[in-house]
């Protein structure tokens, strides 16, 4: 897939809570094709401590509005700076990068998308894509508490949504892997993105139950295009670049101790 470096313009910067914000960006020509699971490397040119671009998952592409959504968590100086960006500001992106979640085979009808924290970001685009292709995706989203559950109304457009919160303020109390839907319903395929301990727990559940599972990793990156070899994940086939050979991996290829 062809990669681009473009200046996009911010059309909205919505504060979702103290930690998360949603940036909507547009381009003066048609946005390039992007796949669920891909990411953008965002240039932050006004933070003295932020030297490298920031890899951010593509949350959603609104083709009608020619809008690209980035769901961002305030983690360090760079993303804190981004949270303050006003409408109309230009943001330089290198995108779309990385592979994508693999296409779902027609015989895998029961598909579960598990997202945790900011890891829900690629699940929205993936869910929309699956729905468009005629599947009925089921979402299982986890967060610390109700206020950390993001974009719920967007998710419900594309499928049934189940939630867990650590404090029980929304959905079932506990972690995603403890949700009752996992025992009530049988799934053929799981896609997951979120904190590594969560993804490992999901991978463990999937392995024990013989369910095919793909996880999207977020190792620290520099270039994002496979040149620097910094973001490698140790796989059964040696070190692989998360930026070009990932970020999505089939869990059976990873060397996770699960």
């Amino acid at each position, binding site marked *: 897939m062809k990669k681009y470096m473009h200046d996009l313009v911010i059309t909205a910067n919505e504060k979702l809570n103290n930690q998360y914000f949603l940036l909507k960006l547009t381009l003066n020509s048609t946005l390039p094709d992007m796949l669920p699971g891909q990411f953008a490397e965002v240039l932050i040119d006004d933070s*003295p401590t932020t*030297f490298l671009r920031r890899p951010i998952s593509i949350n959603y592409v609104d083709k009608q509005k020619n809008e690209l959504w980035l769901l961002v968590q305030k983690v360090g100086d760079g993303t804190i700076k981004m949270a303050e960006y006003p409408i109309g500001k230009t943001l330089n992106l290198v995108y779309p990068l990385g592979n994508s979640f693999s296409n779902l085979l027609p015989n895998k009808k029961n598909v579960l998308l598990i997202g945790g924290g900011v890891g829900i970001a690629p699940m929205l685009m993936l869910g929309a894509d699956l729905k468009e292709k005629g599947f009925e995706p089921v979402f299982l989203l986890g967060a610390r508490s109700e206020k950390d559950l993001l974009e719920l109304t967007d998710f419900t457009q594309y499928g049934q949504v189940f939630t867990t919160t650590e404090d029980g303020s929304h959905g079932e109390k506990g972690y995603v892997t403890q949700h009752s839907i996992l025992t009530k319903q049988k799934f053929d395929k799981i896609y997951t993105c979120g904190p590594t301990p969560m993804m490992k727990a999901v991978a463990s559940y999937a392995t024990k139950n013989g369910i095919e599972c793909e996880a999207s990793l977020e190792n620290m990156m520099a270039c994002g295009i*496979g*040149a620097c070899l910094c973001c490698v994940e140790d796989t059964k086939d040696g070190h692989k670049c998360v930026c070009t050979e990932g970020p999505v991996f089939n869990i059976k290829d990873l060397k996770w101790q699960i």
Partner: protein
Amino acid sequence: MADLNINLGGLALKNPVMTASGTFGYGFEFEDFVDLSRIGGIIVKGTTIRHREGNPYPRMAETPSGMLNAVGLQNKGVDYFINKIYPDLEKVNTNVIVNVSGSTIDDYVETAEKLAYLSHIPAIELNISCPNVKQGGMAFGTCAGSAEEVVKAVRKAYPKHMMVKLSPNVTDIAEIARAVEFAGADSVSLINTLLGMAVDAKTRKPVLSTVTGGLSGPCVKPVALRMVWQTAKAVNIPVVGLGGIMNATDAIEFFLAGASAIQIGTANFIDPTITMKVIDGINEYLDENGFGSIKDIIGALEIAD
């Protein structure tokens, strides 16, 4: 349009802008962003006699105005390069230079010998300065005696242009440069990364799996400029400058300090089109300042008596 051609110790460059090893992959990674044939020289990823997995993750730490890396020369070995990568590189219409590294002198010699047969590889860059490998690498380049020994041995085995990449982690870089010139190097490139370290106060652990790593980016530019200036005065072979070049102005500074060509490294990670911008910017600078050729500004630094 100024004349950007450079004769780098017998190696003809269409312009003095090259890409630093380990920051530009094999070039193809950047094809969506740049016209590879416009670059003066592409120095591809460090290549060793055998496959290397490199160091464990994490291998990178962001620092103020720069980054540390500890990749550890991950590559699939010289035979894989020759059989799988070189055939595609043959189609790239510019100088493709292979960065060669090793743990022993025999490793360097054997790798260079194999590369000498490749007609589309007019030069190698001998890496005696990698800070991220346990054996060899920088150990060769931090002492004049061992630097001379490895360069002499490769010189016997490699008839084409041999650039030698120097380490800044030394007391007197000019002394090392003189030693490799004496041993038969056709040019020297400097600087490789500066040995550094990052600590995570929260976890009370080092950030890098290897504890130490190589620092690059604009934070090293003043050190690189100083070393290029010292080295250019000390040797008669051309000096290739690198270290934190982020734009054409940075590049011009290196030419003024005595570099005959430059390499762009870490900046490729921030702006994948940067090589094109630097080539255009150098040309503009020469035009605006009335210089007909890049050669007019090499070593043209004016220092008061």
